[in-house]
């Protein structure tokens, strides 16, 4: 099943065109990596997909789970099955992680006609995921991302991913700012999440995350367009040659 299809996507931020015609298809069971230098439009693509204010599609089409996203709000896209992993996870003072996670999971359940998750089941599930991500359950009582280290923030993103179980995870530089140990934990979370029913897109600068997560496709993005696509081998070429050599490809 097609989870995501972009056809000739042109998009602008504050009326400045950043994405210059992107074609991409992600099917269930696939893991893609989008690699590119700073300023190539990777984060813009994430925000456009999520439907963030200020990011507008001027040409082309986006389909999520086979349906066009035109007119869908940020939360509707999330409830359809899109999960955006943040490059810089947001701190929310005054809202505990526990409260946030519970409202998020309940929003998903209610949208498919289920009842809110009972607190006991929720706690069992969250504690289990936290343990697998080597996160202390103490952090559930703390405000969302407030006072978390860089690694904890990224693991908190993966916790949300594993709890909400979206159809498509679009992870924007989830590997940035992580030491090797944290990187391995995050990679482990992604590997546990991936299945034949869902898809993952890893947006990254570097090849190093791909040492821990096997990808099916690699796309090179330069100046708001995908200039080259290939298999995992392409990531090694980037590592060896840099983006400059591929930009003209």
């Amino acid at each position, binding site marked *: 099943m097609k989870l995501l299809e972009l056809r000739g996507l042109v998009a602008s931020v504050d009326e400045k065109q950043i994405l210059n015609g992107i074609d991409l298809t992600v099917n269930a069971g696939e893991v893609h990596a989008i690699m590119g230098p700073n300023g190539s439009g990777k984060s813009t693509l994430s925000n456009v997909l*999520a439907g*963030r*204010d200020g990011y507008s599609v001027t040409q082309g089409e986006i389909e999520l789970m086979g349906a066009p996203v035109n007119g869908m*709000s*940020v*939360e509707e*896209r*999330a*409830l359809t099955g899109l*999960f*955006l992993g*943040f490059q810089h*996870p*947001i*701190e*929310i*003072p*005054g*809202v505990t992680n526990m*409260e*946030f996670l519970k*409202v*998020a999971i309940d*929003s*998903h359940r209610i*949208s498919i006609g289920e009842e809110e998750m009972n607190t006991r089941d929720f706690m069992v599930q969250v504690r289990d995921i936290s343990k697998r991500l080597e996160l202390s359950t103490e952090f559930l009582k703390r*405000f969302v991302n407030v006072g978390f280290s860089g690694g904890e923030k990224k693991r908190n993103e993966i916790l*949300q991913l594993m709890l*909400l179980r979206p159809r498509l995870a679009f992870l924007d530089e989830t590997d940035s700012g992580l030491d090797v140990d944290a990187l391995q934990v995050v990679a482990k979370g992604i590997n546990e999440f991936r299945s034949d029913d869902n898809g993952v897109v890893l947006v990254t600068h570097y090849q190093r995350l791909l040492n821990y997560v096997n990808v099916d496709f690699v796309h090179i993005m330069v100046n708001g367009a995908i200039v080259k696509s290939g298999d995992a081998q392409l990531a090694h070429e980037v590592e060896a040659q840099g983006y400059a050599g591929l930009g003209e490809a």
Partner: protein
Amino acid sequence: MADARTADSAQSDLLTRVFAQEVQETPWLDRSSSRAELHDAGLPMPWKGRWQYTDYQALIEDALMLEESKEALQSCDGVEVSHLDQPTSDAETNALNSYESVGEFPLMDVNGLLFRSGTKLDATTQTAHASIIDATGSVDRHLISVAEDAKLRIEESFQSGNRVALCYVRENATLEYELTMPQGEEPGYHCIVVWLEADSTLRLHLASKGSRVRRNDVIVNTIGRNASATLSGGWLVDDRDHLDTQVCMNHRVGNTHSEQSFHGVVDDRARSAFSGFIRIDRDASAAEAHLTNRNIALSPHARAHAQPELEIYTDDVICSHGATTGHLDADSLFMMRSRGIDEDSARTMLTKGFLRQVVHSESGSSLLQL
């Protein structure tokens, strides 16, 4: 000029009526300091300075109509109580009531002339507790004394009327004061004045909604070394309500410490005002004072005014102050929505989160529906 004369004449008339209504039935209470202050200073210019956002004349008119005498002390423990409407020979009562002027707070002196009821509370133990409830329809005054080494916790609820609490915290004593103000219809004036002697501690926490007109004055004076004051709280003002909170933190001697943290939310067509004034006297070297006030306007028609002020008369101090007024954080809102949380729920969670950072007490949380 014609307008100024009209205003002067209206104030003079109002003041004459206040003097005429001075309560005579309690001859054992000395009201001379209030009388002298009002006589000498008169009433300030309306809609200026500390009264820029609130109609004090409406509050005085309201006080002039409040003639009931109601019991406000609900319960207490470890506290000696005298009622001010009963004859007393206690010289200390009048000493406490004869406070020195703190300036620009005429409503406090209006209260001094018009109050008919109230209590004097003397806390002498480490576990003293008093609960003061709303006494709608009355002008009341409470004189609170926390003895050396004692600790008093006050929980107070106030909705409307006119009330002043004068608190003397003796050496090494602690006063914990929790004030909640539910939403009200009628005008309300509330004022707390605290004097902190050496090594004493004040922890004051407020949680407030608004009313048609509501003014809340907090005046803290550190008069002994190593005194410390922590003032915190939040407000949520909606409908067409009004809430004006003024805090004056006066560091009168050195080596004293104060910390203020207030968050306010305004919605609908409501208006809030906050003024946090910190004064460090010439003799108050090595004082440390910090103030933050953050406000969020949820509706384009709501108004939040914030004004931090510093007056420092000595060099050796550490001070910081800051006030902001804005909207809910767009990044946080986007992040929550990107997890499937609808916009209204996300806004509610963020608003509660914003207040929860400063409103910790149970009663405050339930008042603001956190």
